[in-house]
């Protein structure tokens, strides 16, 4: 609880600082919400759910509520590098808060190529203006990897033809915090898979600042918005794991909270897609699930307003929030155990007869995973 009180104090201090800044809007958020039919009660409910999402004790929901009211003073610059726009698409799906209230009420979106009205020369002016005006104060979100081969020339953006490498270095310079949204910005992603023809790297590898990595291809909308809210509330980065992922979202393995975990423990496995086990919702480990090796909150938060997640749809987790997963966890329909846990698959195959075999697989998987946990660092 000591840690929590310290954190609470820090949050309070941060909000005081924010309060000193000039307001961006005449009316308070409360007034604006009332105009839109959102009651104080609804708002407090929302704050409590964000608090729970961030794995903080309930008293923090006051801070969340206050932060939301002050949040529109934090400028956000969102850059696209070597990417597929999947992370922006994920952001567009956000529902707590949803995108329009995020933009109108919570942040000041200064630059975002998929959403902004300006184009070309005028868009580049917006970026230059924001980098200068808000130097030292803006949040920088990055989507996509940084191509570094060929002096970065595999990506240029803007009328002036600057490379992605130049742009990210300049933008990182004045950022109050940097958030790598998705596995590409975090760890290089798909273009960094072997043989990595463009020398694609994660943002943290090319800038000299701390970077929060939101692994996931794409990360869920909850993990993106939750991380933004954390920064706004506390003016600092959340506690991170060894890969600089926020612990509140990436603190547990997919396997730990999986809805099929009971099937795993009972030794009930899908042997082939579409079989009786698949119809019954058995464990997907033997058809390639990487849940035991992957840190993310997919089983608890799911995707798209809690509608589903890959394991519910009958497909094993592919490990998309882990570094190098395209190489380390392929091929995706085979258990990783065939590489790392020699002999254990044979055990798994016999567990129909010897139920405890499942535990052996479990112990093996957990042993590997605990290597990661053991070396993870506190923020």
């Amino acid at each position: 609880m000591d840690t929590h009180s310290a954190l609470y104090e820090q949050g309070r201090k941060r909000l005081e600082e924010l309060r000193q800044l000039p307001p961006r809007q005449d009316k308070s958020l409360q007034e604006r919400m009332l105009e839109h039919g959102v009651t104080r009660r609804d708002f407090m409910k929302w704050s409590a759910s964000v608090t729970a999402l961030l794995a903080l004790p309930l008293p923090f929901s006051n801070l969340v509520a206050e932060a939301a009211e002050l949040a529109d003073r934090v400028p956000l610059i969102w850059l696209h590098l070597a990417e597929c726009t999947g992370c922006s698409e994920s952001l567009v799906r956000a529902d707590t808060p949803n995108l329009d209230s995020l933009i109108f009420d919570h942040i000041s979106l200064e630059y975002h190529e998929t959403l902004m009205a300006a184009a070309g020369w005028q868009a580049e002016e917006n970026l230059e203006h924001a980098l200068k005006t808000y130097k030292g104060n803006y949040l920088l979100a990055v989507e996509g990897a940084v191509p570094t081969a060929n002096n970065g020339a595999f990506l240029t953006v803007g009328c002036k033809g600057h490379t992605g490498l130049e742009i990210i270095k300049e933008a990182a310079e004045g950022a109050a915090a940097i958030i790598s949204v998705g596995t590409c910005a975090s760890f290089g992603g798909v273009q960094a898979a072997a043989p990595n023809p463009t020398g694609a790297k994660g943002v943290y590898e090319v800038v000299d600042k701390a970077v929060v990595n939101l692994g996931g291809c794409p990360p869920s909308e909850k993990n993106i918005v939750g991380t933004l809210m954390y920064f706004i509330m506390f003016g600092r980065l959340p506690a991170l794991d060894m890969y600089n992922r926020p612990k509140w979202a990436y603190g547990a393995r997919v396997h730990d909270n999986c809805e099929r975990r009971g099937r795993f423990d009972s030794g009930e496995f899908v042997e082939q897609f579409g079989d009786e086990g698949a119809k019954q919702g058995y464990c997907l480990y033997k058809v390639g699930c990487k849940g035991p090796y992957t840190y993310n909150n997919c089983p608890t938060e799911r995707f798209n307003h809690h509608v589903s997640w890959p394991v519910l749809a009958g497909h094993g987790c592919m490990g998309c929030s882990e570094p190098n997963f395209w190489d380390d966890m392929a091929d995706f329909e085979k258990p990783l155990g065939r590489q790392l846990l020699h002999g254990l698959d044979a055990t798994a195959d016999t567990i129909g007869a010897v139920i405890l075999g499942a535990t052996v697989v479990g112990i093996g998987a957990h042993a590997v995973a605990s290597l990661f946990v053991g070396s993870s660092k506190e923020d």
Partner: protein
Amino acid sequence: MNQRVVIDPITRIEGHLRIEVEVDENNVVKKAWSASTLWRGIEVILKGRTPMDVGLLVQRICGVCTYSHYRCGTEAVEDALGIKIPLNARYLRSLMHTSLFMHDHVVHFYHLHGLDWVDVVSALSADPAKAAQVALKYSDKPIAAGEGELRAVQERVKGFVETGKLGPFANAYWGNGTYKFTPEQNLIALSHYLKALEVQRVAAEMLAIFGGKQPHPQSLVVGGVTSVRDMLSPARLQEWKQKHDIVADFIERGYKADVIMAAEAFGGEASVLGGVNVHNFMATNDFVTADGEYIFQEGVIMNGDLKNVTDINPDLIAEDVTHAWYKADKPQHPYDGTTIPDYTGLVERDTVYGKLPTLDGDNKYSWVKSPRYNGEPVEVGPLSCLLVNYAKGNKVVVDAVNGLLQRTGLPIEALFTTLGRTAARMLQTSIVAQESIKTFNALLTNMLSDEATYVKPVIDPNKEYVGHGMIEAPRGMLSHWIRIKGGLVENYQAVVPTTWNAGPVDANGKVGPYEAALVGLKLEDPAKPLEVIRIIHSFDPCMACAVHVMDYKGQSLGEFRVDAKSL
């Protein structure tokens, strides 16, 4: 004295696109160049991987038409291996495809293309009461367009604008003379812009029901689909149907009404009445409604001749790289290409914004290749799909097109325009939304006697396999081509819609649809080229899709790193 206009980044699209045009003293576009400025090398990365992982990996070509590549890549492998997937799997894939179209086209029209037609600043001076009356002209049951709703939207945006910080609306081309909506019409569209943000979330949820998540769903495998439990759950099926109805309702009362409103307001605007200057169109069979039946049928139209629609001959497809940043001495069929990146950089010259690095149009200038059909450039996309099906007499399409022409009073020629391209996308969405209920019902019927969703693929490592997948993605005809050897991917290529449309000029001087579309366009102010952006957006660019490499057969992978020149 001609002037060069540089537009980079083209915003509100997927990916990195640069357009340059040259205008004469009357501000009329004489020449245009289209370039992608990012290369990622996905197909190189596919080399030596198991064909079972292809779908998951090629899906990462794009996070917007995310499901299209997933499905097309998976079906290319199935074609190569000669696998016929169970009927239920075909229906489920079709329903997921429906969900993608209903999502993607709505987001494109409102959030990407919309601000080219809608002047947000003008909406702030509208009279909400009057606007509510205006909305009744375009739909007898308008959505999110009652007086109270419009007033709330207006006040919300007004409050936002009055702070002096426009956020995502800052520094756009507001006030440009080619914006044609009245303040009231702008306000209606602005309200729908916000409503569509809500509706697109529901559309994404539709796909997530059978797909696990959206973007980047995860329920297709070579041999079928994995979401058998969702299929067998009546609750899940109804969840899809319920969300489908919400989105379909918005498409009819919002999207369709807004396109009719735009057709009326922009029907006399010169800058949107051109823009279809390549008169070759192509589309493929897609959207299974029953075993062997499709909503849309395949065909090729050359030289605008709607009377002669031929079937697609896959052998006639080849890609030219004369003006793309790759080395190759002749056009190559997707099965037999080579790839060597050859980046030659930009050239400094005077532009309307002063001295800037610009595209070297005489030489190489884009990461997009130039696909050709029998040596000719071809436009693909919703307009092509509707034209092919209209020409073939596909009743659903003929009725939809004629209905819209009748409702707007526009002649059939109006289809061959930027406005027509945007209207065609709406009609395609509406048709997909309505007709897909047949697929849904076919699934329900089939499930009563058949629960199969998967057949296990078999690969013989001693055999060599070749195959391709061909589907209609939201941006047009998409094809993936694969060669399998030793049980692994030996060769892979995607020929995607945006490559067909956005490719640079070829060896014979033939220009692609983007570049052709811009020639002859008159700009109000070359320093604020709204008209160019509107035409380019009407194609719905998707650059990450468009940029990829041809095969790497016989080459050392090291070449990809060292061969390009620096800036």
